[in-house]
């Protein structure tokens, strides 16, 4: 028989970074199984605590009291899943307990915004008329999977109060620090540099074993006069190369040498996890985040911030309905079926932005000569008109006739006529 899962959600009313450790201390004071979800939000496993503290209401009250003693105002929700515990904590009461087995019913009237949905998913569900978690939970699962894939199933399980993911236990962040007190005073830079090299080797070894790199290295020297001299170095890229770190430290020390002898030295690293530069042997190296950020910043300065990005098509048939959106490298690989070896060859269109006013001579209702700032030539072939229109329901309706023409020099163009003026829209290339 599986144990009934019961989770308590501690939600700070006014989350503050410096009080986060108080929230964790409250949770850890009651259960060893604690997960930190974010600023001002902590879950703890309360199953089996009844023998210690009584019923769930008493546990919840005890948690709220413990937080109040530390100056924290929190709301407590106790339920069978994270989602329902969070919804209970957000109910506005100091304590809300969802009885076992009632998670789905409790979540049913909650709005979809409780789920951290992607914009695309939220928009799609909104278009379907889904407003509450109950409506999402009641959708037929096979049809939902066909339309939204595994992500659709995941959010539906959350909406039903199903939560199979175990808690990610919170652990004290490791401190990467090494110290050395040789027992004699180091009066020159050379022995100090040697000591820093040995400390750097030990520190980098620890970082490597944990799969981390040092983003910043801070040094502190305790001087013979009782004072402390401190400094730090930040390498251009996170590193675990002890000799390189030692060189940087030596340069930093040389720029600010201690005035008196050094009795002890401490080296501390700020650790970061660096994504692998390459997923596999056949994959291309990933963008270095620092280099990419620097390059994009320089490109923005060169071309203008609004001239760089990923092309985004707008939901409109209006010609050239596209804009620039923010660009960031995608790490996911395309599905094999989506990656044809040979793409479909398509005749490219070079857009003229903005469309260029043109003077077109007609004979028998067909264009025979084009005069514009960019192109002036006899038209040898003209086909059309191809009428397009749209957005008549807005205050910016549009309608125009498109003509594909071949000029005397062989250039193929697209012209547009809006009833009064002719425009050069693009050149086929």
């Amino acid at each position, binding site marked *: 028989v599986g144990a009934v899962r019961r989770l308590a959600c501690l939600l700070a009313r006014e989350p503050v970074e410096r009080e986060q450790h108080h929230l964790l201390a409250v949770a850890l004071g009651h259960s060893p199984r604690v997960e930190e979800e974010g600023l001002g939000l902590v879950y703890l496993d309360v199953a089996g605590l009844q023998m210690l503290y009584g019923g769930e209401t008493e546990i919840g009250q005890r948690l709220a009291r413990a937080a109040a003693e530390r100056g924290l105002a929190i709301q407590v929700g106790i339920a069978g899943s994270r989602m329902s515990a969070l919804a209970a904590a957000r109910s506005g009461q100091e304590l809300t307990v969802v009885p076992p087995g009632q998670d789905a019913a409790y979540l049913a009237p909650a709005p979809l915004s409780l789920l951290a949905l992607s914009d695309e998913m939220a928009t799609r569900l909104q278009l379907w008329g889904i407003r509450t978690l109950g409506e999402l939970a009641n959708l037929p699962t096979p049809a939902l999977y066909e339309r939204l894939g595994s992500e659709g199933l995941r959010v539906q399980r959350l909406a039903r109060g199903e939560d199979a993911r175990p808690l990610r236990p919170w652990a004290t962040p490791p401190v990467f620090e090494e110290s050395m007190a040789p027992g004699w005073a180091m009066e020159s830079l050379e022995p100090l540099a040697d000591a820093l090299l040995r400390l750097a080797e030990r520190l980098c070894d620890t970082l490597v074993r944990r799969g981390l790199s040092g983003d910043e290295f801070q040094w502190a020297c305790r001087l013979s006069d009782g004072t402390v001299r401190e400094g730090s170095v930040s390498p251009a890229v996170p590193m675990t190369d002890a000799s390189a770190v030692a060189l940087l430290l030596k340069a930093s020390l040389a720029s600010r040498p201690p005035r008196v002898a050094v009795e002890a030295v401490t080296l501390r690293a700020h650790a970061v996890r660096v994504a692998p530069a390459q997923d596999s042997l056949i994959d291309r190296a990933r963008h270095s985040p620092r280099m990419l950020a620097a390059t994009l910043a320089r490109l923005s300065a*060169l071309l203008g911030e609004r001239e760089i990005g990923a092309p985004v098509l707008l939901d409109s048939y209006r010609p050239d309905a596209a804009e620039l959106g923010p660009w960031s490298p995608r790490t996911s690989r395309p599905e094999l079926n989506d990656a044809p070896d040979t793409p479909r060859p398509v005749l490219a269109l070079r857009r003229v932005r903005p469309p260029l006013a043109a003077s077109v001579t007609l004979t028998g209702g067909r264009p025979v000569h084009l005069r514009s700032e960019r192109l002036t030539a006899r038209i040898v072939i003209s086909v059309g008109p191809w009428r397009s229109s749209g957005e008549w329901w807005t205050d910016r309706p549009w309608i125009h006739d498109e003509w594909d023409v071949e000029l005397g020099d062989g250039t193929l163009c697209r012209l547009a006529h809006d009833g009064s003026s002719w425009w050069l829209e693009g050149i086929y290339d």
Partner: protein
Amino acid sequence: MSDSNVFLPAAHGWDPRGLDRLLHAFPAGELSEIAGPWSAGAGSLLLALIARVTASGQHVALVDGADAFDPTTAMTAGVDLERLLWLRCRGRSREAWSASDLVVRCAGFALVALDLGEPRLIRRERMPYALCRRLKLAAEQSGAILVLRVPQPIAGTAAALAVSLRRLESRWIGQPRATRLAGITAEARIVRCHAQASSLAAGQVIQWAL
């Protein structure tokens, strides 16, 4: 020229073999050049190359000298727009060269395309060959495929692969009277091919329908 050097389009549609070989011939870590007047298929060849690279899950930077890139056509050609960094230079040729120089040095882009497909952009530049040499050296460092689309050849020996395009025919559709341009048949001639392990050689001609 021997018959084996010509890849003709199929009777209906196009010959996938010739275009596929051409797209795979653009060497990484080298400068390549696609030259041809408007409506010859040069822009379409560049688009097909961008589509092939993005479809394989890699990133592309397009330095759009004249702000002429059409995302709608690109989407139709199979370009994954989310893997494309579009740099709009709006006719500023000097900025386009500088942007190419910056982006080609940033590791992570499998393809960097510089579109200077308008004669006015080339005429403004005094030393295009020197700029091409500089870009070639940068591409060697980053390992990116660097492609230059120009109206007429300017890279000279800096280009490991140089392709010259011309249009063979135009096709029109519509009944009873044509109303739209259906496509063209393009011919690519390999002017220079110094790339190692390439299946193409100078003088080869590839034709395909768009």
